[in-house]
């Protein structure tokens, strides 16, 4: 063992240790050396301070430049976004005759050789001898003479055009995923599933009517609260056809009369529809509910078209609450989900998306619903974690 003194005592001994004096010549030599070095160091103090200030200013300027660069970059990025959207929206490719482009800041004539970008909200009108062609991300739109068409919106999920009157021909690329293309008219909405077709809006008895003619693929037409699929070679019109005498017993509102394809293929469809019609005739209550479903759906669609998303969501919700098993339920749920999304109510949009997926796992909007449901959940988690 090697016993040691109390540590406190040892520390005190260090404190009390006698410091021996040094030889005078050594002390003087050290003084001379250190004082000389100190003098040099002290002389450098203002210089070093200036250097520090200079470095600080340099760093401050660099920081300001970096900040400006960052802010500028963000601004460019933010500013660049509409450009990217505009590239994704539409650009005029060819013009014949007169084409008038109407924008919020005024109207102007687009001359031949010009290729202006079409932004959401822009409206183009062709004269009686005019034609135009414009390209969106997914479709080629040919505008016939005497036509007025508006680019309603272009979002990652949807390209939407509104045909006020005249005729447009569309060739839409067939894709598994990506934005869908919708052409809306005063009384119908045509949803494209990858096809080539024309839509014409004219006026019969003073009311606008829509005609759809499909060359390739299939489009779905939403009219009067019903959905019909129009395939290649078929035509569809919103004109109410006179009900054949043989079927006069069936209530007119039961059958979406304007949705019958008029080609040879339509006879097969009529045959398929016949039993359903009979069943409806046997069930007057069901027939009555269909009329109301149609009315409620139309009211909701009109609210949506007017941009009244909250009212649209409520009307679609009322329809779903009253007729949960309606044939229109799928479309109503999708529209309700979209209305909530547009309103920024992510939680309710996600809830509606989940309901949609639960009931229509293979529905046409399943991908969109999945994204909405996931987006809502992600945002909800982010909010919770904050």
């Amino acid at each position, binding site marked *: 063992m*090697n016993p*040691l003194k109390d*540590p406190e005592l*040892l*520390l005190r*001994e*260090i404190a009390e*240790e006698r410091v021996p004096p040094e030889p005078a010549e050594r002390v003087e030599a050290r003084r001379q050396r250190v*004082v000389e070095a*100190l003098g040099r160091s002290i002389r450098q103090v203002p210089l070093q301070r200036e250097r520090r200030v200079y470095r600080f200013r340099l760093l401050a300027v660099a920081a300001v430049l970096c900040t400006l660069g960052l802010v500028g970059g963000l601004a460019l990025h933010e500013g660049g976004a509409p450009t990217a959207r505009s590239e994704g929206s539409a650009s005029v490719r060819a013009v014949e005759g007169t084409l008038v482009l109407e924008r919020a800041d005024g109207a102007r004539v687009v001359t031949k050789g010009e290729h202006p970008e079409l932004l959401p909200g822009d409206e183009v009108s062709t004269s009686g001898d005019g034609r135009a062609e414009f390209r969106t991300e997914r479709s080629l739109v040919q505008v016939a003479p005497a036509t007025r068409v508006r680019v309603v919106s272009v979002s990652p999920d949807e390209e939407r055009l509104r045909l006020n009157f005249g005729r447009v021909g569309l060739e839409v690329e067939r894709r598994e995923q990506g934005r869908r293309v919708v052409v809306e008219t005063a009384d119908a909405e045509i949803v494209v599933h990858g096809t080539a077709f024309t839509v014409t809006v004219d006026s019969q008895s003073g009311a606008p009517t829509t005609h759809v003619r499909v060359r390739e693929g299939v489009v779905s037409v939403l009219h009067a609260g019903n959905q019909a699929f129009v395939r290649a070679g078929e035509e569809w019109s919103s004109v109410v056809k006179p009900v054949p005498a043989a079927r006069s017993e069936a209530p007119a509102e039961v059958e979406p009369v304007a949705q019958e394809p008029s080609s040879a293929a339509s006879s097969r469809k009529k045959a398929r529809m016949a039993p359903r019609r009979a069943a409806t005739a046997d069930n007057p209550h069901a027939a009555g509910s269909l009329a109301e479903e149609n009315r409620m759906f139309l009211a909701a669609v009109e609210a949506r078209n007017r941009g009244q998303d909250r009212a649209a969501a409520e009307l679609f919700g009322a329809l779903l609450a009253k007729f949960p098993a309606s044939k229109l339920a799928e479309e109503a749920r999708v529209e309700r989900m979209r209305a909530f999304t547009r309103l920024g109510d992510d939680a309710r949009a996600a809830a509606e998306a989940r309901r949609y997926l639960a009931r229509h796992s293979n529905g046409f909007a399943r991908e969109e619903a999945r994204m909405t449901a996931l987006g809502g959940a992600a945002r909800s988690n982010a909010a919770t974690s904050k």
Partner: protein
Amino acid sequence: MPTDEELIEAVQRGDHRIAGLLYDRLIGVVDHTLFRVFGRREVDHDDLVQSVFEQIIVTLSRRSYARACSLKTWAASIASHVGFNSLRSRKRERRVLDRDATIDNAVVPARVDTEGLASARVELDRVRKHLVGMRPEQAQTVFLHDVLGHELAEIALMMRVSVAAAQSRLVRGRRELYRRLDVESARPPRRKGGTS
């Protein structure tokens, strides 16, 4: 005689004429502090003194010295810091403190027996060795408080910590030092050259 404030302002102005005055004001405390850290004046003692003064000028010019304590106290703090850093670097190089303690005859008082004094020096060198092996902030706090006799409030100002933190460092540092000394005292003594 210029006050501390006047000396500091002269340094910050770059007035090199006060170098001698500053040296004379602080050399005593710097020399004594370095002596207590090492237990002797090492061969590079003058270099260390110069390093301490250079460091003092740097801290004064950068306004790191908060003027909350006297210039001498500040100089002692810097000297202990420089001294312990030097000891640590030497320890890393395995050149000092692990070797057999050497006796500086100049330290030996005339009326004290040489053997007893050598034994005392060995014990004190053990304390220094353990201080160097400890966490720097704890070792410096123990040294400033228990060896140089500074108040905790003063140490807190010098080390730019709260008084509570300085107190904690002191308590922990002492505990660690005593633990190290206890462990060593329980260890069998080393045999020189492997023979008894």
